[in-house]
Structure formats: C-alpha cells, structure tokens
C-alpha cells in the first residue's frame, strides 16, 4: 500500500533529532516505494554512507548506484558532496573551462563548500536539478539531524536576504519555490515517544510549515512499544485472571519487566497525548524492534510495519 505522500510529489525530505532513527526511516520509506514499483533515489546529505549497506548495497558515495532491486522497483543511493555540487553548478551556468580550471586550482570548491548557507544551497540546488530532470520517481533526502535540518532547509531563505541578484539569488529562489510546492516536495518528520524529541519535533514542524511552506507528511513516531493495557494489572492479578499458576522465580522475573515497562509505557502514552494536543499532523507509529542491531532484516521489518501502519490509517 503506497501512501499519497510517497506518490504525490517527487522529493521527500526526511528529518528528525539525532538518534531518533530518521536515516533508517528514510531507508524504509525508500524500500516501501520500491516495493510499489518505483525507481527511488536515496540521497544522504550528511554523508551517512552506512545506509547503503542497510539496504543491501555498497556504502554510499557520490556515484549514483543501485542498492537494491525489488520486483519492478529499485532503490538507488548517493551522497552529494558540496564540492561536487559546486563544480556541477559552474558547468551548468556555462562558466568557461579555463575559468573552471583556475577555480579548481585555487580550491574554490573547498571555499564554497565551507561557506555556511552556500554549501547547503549548492546541495539543495543539485537536488532541485535532479528533480527537474526527473532522475527518479521518488527522491528521498536524508537531511542532517535536527538543529542542522532547519539550517539546511533554511539556507535558501537565508541567502535570499544577503544576495539581491545574480545566479545565486536565482538558485535560492528556485529552491525556495520547490520546497513550498506540495506537488513537488514533502517533508517527513521522525520522532520518538519521548519528551525531548517530541518538543523538538513540534518546534521543527511549525518552523518548516510556517516559514518555508513545506507540506508535511504524517509524523512518524519511531520506537513505540505495543500498548498493553493488561500490564496495569499486577503480575499476580494477571495470573489469577488467566487462572495460571506462576513459579515464584517467574513471578519475580515478570515483576522486574513489568515495573520498568509500565513506567515507560505511561511516558509513551503521555507523549502521544501531547502530540495529539500540540501538533495537528496525522501520525504513523513504528514499533520498537526487540533488538539493538540494525541490518537488512530489520529494515525489511520496518518497511512492513510502515506499510501496515499506513493501511491501518485508511
């Protein structure tokens, strides 16, 4: 089942606070779209090469490579180093070969890449070119983690303030237009059902929607434990309710997990309720997998869960 936010627009920017799993969720979305027959390009802005292996391919680099084929669909992946985006940009703007050579001898690419705002704009500009060239059915952009995600997406707006004219201004205008056009671009925010990630997600959601006009897909709440209302009963009462006799060792073991689990589950319910109250975005819950390991098997499970979650909502 393909959600509309995957089929409606070409670019899907995935963002979340560090540690909430936004890179993994981005990879799971790419896989889900490929299962539906789409040709997907996954772009890691922050150079998270490992996501290539997660999809069963080689670690990402600046070459566009196929990471995984699924039926008629496939997932490709690449990074966009700002230096390369700068070189591509000069070429695209018809800067002569002689001057390009001089620029490269003077390591202008590294200066451009180190200039804040410009570096991000170059990368976003390249993504916009890929979108314009219809380089894929879906382009999943793994944005830098939270604080940096805002800076990354705001780079065009920030440069519009400093630069009044010229190609850099045009580039900034075009990128801003793409971000604000819901037929071309969506944002996908990822969070955990915990206090700090929830707070930062709410802040980021308002920021991106109001300031940049970015259309947001449903919020992904990653790492959710299944809600088990029966756990409010004590272990003894629960055993009685199911007419089961427990050994004292088993009762003690279950009490250890129950005591911890109840508190965490309470916290999770509280955070989901806060999201209900403070953020008018539909939500998709992804389960916490019972493992700390993350590999291709786990990614398939997450794509399954994402698909089920999308179906559950409709």
């Amino acid at each position: 089942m393909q959600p509309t936010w995957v089929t409606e627009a070409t670019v899907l920017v995935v963002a979340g606070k560090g540690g909430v799993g936004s890179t993994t969720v981005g990879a799971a979305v790419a896989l889900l779209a490929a299962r539906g027959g789409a040709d997907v390009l996954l772009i890691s802005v922050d150079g998270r090469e490992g996501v290539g292996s997660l999809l069963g391919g080689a670690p990402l680099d600046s070459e566009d490579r196929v990471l995984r084929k699924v039926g008629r669909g496939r997932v490709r992946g690449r990074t966009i180093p700002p230096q390369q985006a700068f070189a591509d940009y000069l070429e695209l703007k018809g800067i002569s070969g002689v001057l390009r050579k001089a620029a490269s001898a003077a390591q202008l690419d590294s200066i451009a890449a180190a200039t804040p705002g410009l570096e991000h704009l170059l990368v976003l500009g390249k993504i916009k070119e890929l979108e314009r060239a219809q380089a894929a059915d879906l382009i999943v952009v793994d944005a830098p983690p939270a604080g940096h995600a805002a800076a990354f997406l705001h780079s065009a707006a920030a440069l519009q303030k400093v630069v009044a004219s010229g190609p850099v201004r045009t580039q900034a205008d075009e990128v801003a237009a793409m971000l604000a056009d819901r037929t071309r671009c969506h944002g996908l925010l990822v969070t955990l059902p915990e206090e700090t990630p929830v707070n930062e997600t709410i802040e980021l959601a308002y920021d991106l929607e109001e300031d940049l006009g970015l259309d947001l897909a449903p919020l992904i709440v990653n790492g959710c434990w299944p809600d088990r209302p029966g756990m409010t009963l004590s272990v003894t009462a629960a055993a009685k309710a199911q007419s089961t006799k427990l050994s004292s060792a088993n009762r003690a073991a279950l009490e250890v997990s129950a005591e911890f689990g109840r508190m965490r589950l309470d916290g999770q319910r509280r955070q989901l309720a806060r999201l209900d109250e403070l953020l008018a975005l539909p939500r998709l819950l992804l389960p916490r997998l019972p493992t700390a390991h993350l590999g291709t098997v786990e990614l398939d499970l997450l794509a399954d869960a994402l698909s089920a979650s999308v179906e559950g909502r409709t």
Partner: protein
Amino acid sequence: MSAVGETAQLASILQTASLLVTCGPGGVGKTTGAAALGIAAARRGRRVVVVTVDPARRLADALGIDVDAKMFEPHEVTGVGAAGGSLEALMLDAETTFDRMIIERAGDEAKAAKILANPVYRSIAGSLAGAQDYMAIERLHQLHSSGLYDLVIIDTPPSRDAIDLLEAPERLMRFLGHPIYRALTMPSRSFAKVANAGTSAFLWIVRRLAGPRLVEDTVEFFRSLSGMEQGLRQRAGEVADLLRADSTSFVLVSSPRSEAIDESTHLANAIIDGGFGLDAVVINLVHPLPPALDDSLDLDALGEGPLAEHVAYHRELLALATSERHEMAALTDVVSGVHVTEVPLLEIDVHDIDGLTRLAALLVGE
C-alpha cells in the same frame, strides 16, 4: 590524563581533571550526561562550569539558561546541593563569542565597529570554515584560564566520524593560510600586484554569481581581519596544547544501539589517534535485563489476557536488553583498558535537577 591500559573511575576524574570534554553521537543523552557530571563534581566541592552548545529547552530551563538570550557569562545553577563547590552553566553562542573576539583583537573601536557591521561578516559570523567550533574552544580556553573554576566541562556538538571541535584550530589556520585569503588581506596597492589567477577567478566568480556589492564587502571583510591572524594562530596553538594536557579528560558517551556503537567506535579511535586522553566511556540508556523465565510456564497453553501481555513484554525486553549487551561488547573491545560505565535507561526522561542528581549518582556509582 591516563594512558590507555589504565583505568580511571569517573569519580576520580571528576576529582582531579581541570577540563573535561564529553563527546559522542546524537541522541545518546550527552548534554544531560555533561550536566550530571557537573552536579557530581560540584557535590564533591569543586567549582564547576558546564558549557553546552545546543541544549534541549527543558534541560536548559533546569540549568537556568535562557536559550533565546545571547549569553556570554555563565549563570549559577541552584539546588544541586553543592557542598562547598558550585555549579554554573553557559550556553555557547558562537556569534556573540566571535563578536567579542573581534572587539578584543581589532585594536580600536572604529575598526571593530566596521567589521561587525560588514554584511559578509554578519552572514558568516560564527560558522565560516568551522569558526563555530573554533569559538567553542576559544571560550573554553578563556573560562579555563580565568582562575574562577576548578573544572570546565564542555559538551561538544554531536559528531560521527571525527571530532570537528578538536580540528577547529587547524582548520581555521588552513583557511587563513589559503592563498586567496592572503591575497585578499594584503593592503590594496600590493594586492593589485600579487593577486594571483586564483584570486582573480574567485572575485570574478563571486561577482558573476552574486553581484558586485558582495565582492566589495568580501574584500573589505578580509582586509579588516588582517593583522589578527598572528593572535589567532597563537591561541590555536595554546588550545591544541590544552586539549592534550594531562589534566584534560575526554569522556565518550554512547547508547547501546548499533548505529551509536558504530559511530562511537570511530570516535574512540579518532580521540586515541589524535593523542587525546580518552579516560572514560559512558554507555547511557541501557535497558534493564530481566531474569529469564523458567519452563514451568506453558506459553503454548497461555491464551490471550493480561498475563500473556506481561509475558510478551518480558520476552521483548529480554531480547532487546540481551542484544544491547552484545552490541556494547564491540565498543568495550575497542576501548579496552578505559573504564566503561553503564547507565540504565531510567523509567523517566531526565530533564530536571532531581533527574540530573539521580543520573549523577548513577554515573559515579553512589
């Protein structure tokens, strides 16, 4: 501080170190950990300042930091039970620190005002070529040498492959040593003579891409910085020495998830290879490991119901906690000889002084 191969407990590091650097991947509770270490040290009678870069709002509130105000001086944190010691906190604002440095180094007020008003300076202040990271260590050098604190704790921004903060002085020096920068900072007459092809290309491209006004501002900005390079270079050297001093300790904070463990392993190697003293590793947010169930419980015969929910949760928690311990072993192997502290995931999210105090006790094993 201690060479790899020798263990040092966090408690004794807090007692003796004069600079403590926490680093690690994002989302592992690094800032919270730095604040808790600050509390633990203050409770041991030390005068402590915790410097953070980007604290979560509620944690900042707990520490008395107003994230919207541009702070330069640390604030006292109250209610931490610091017997004889004290705890202060500072949220670092790169722009404010950069401005201060310009004012101090520019020599005269008119020159400083001119730089501060330059649009190019305004748009890049605090982030050019790692300047943000550089400002962080500039400020910690000031706090460290002020004589006001026994211990300065700096919470570095999340990092994956390398510690940007530690390379900042060298990166800034590389930038200042760049031929274009050199040409741009020369007095205008010699500039015309020496400006090489690269510099001309640079200015031509800036003009072509962003208009003539920006070229003027850029040239003026670089010229106004001339003469400050010497001081910057000297400070960068001092900071590099300070970070490698015996009284400086690095604490790596991680979580037991495989992504975090991978990043932490890279970081641990970067710290050790860089000649810095990695003295402790904290693995935070570890799920508790419940005892396994014995086979007196017939799971197949157990239908749906509250006990089945208890059993299902127990099974998932046991599987998760077991695999976390397996992932953690990979990091423990890399840092063999360095003391590793495991901190359990608490039933609550930590963001107030009570929570921090509890975390502090867990960190130092009280």
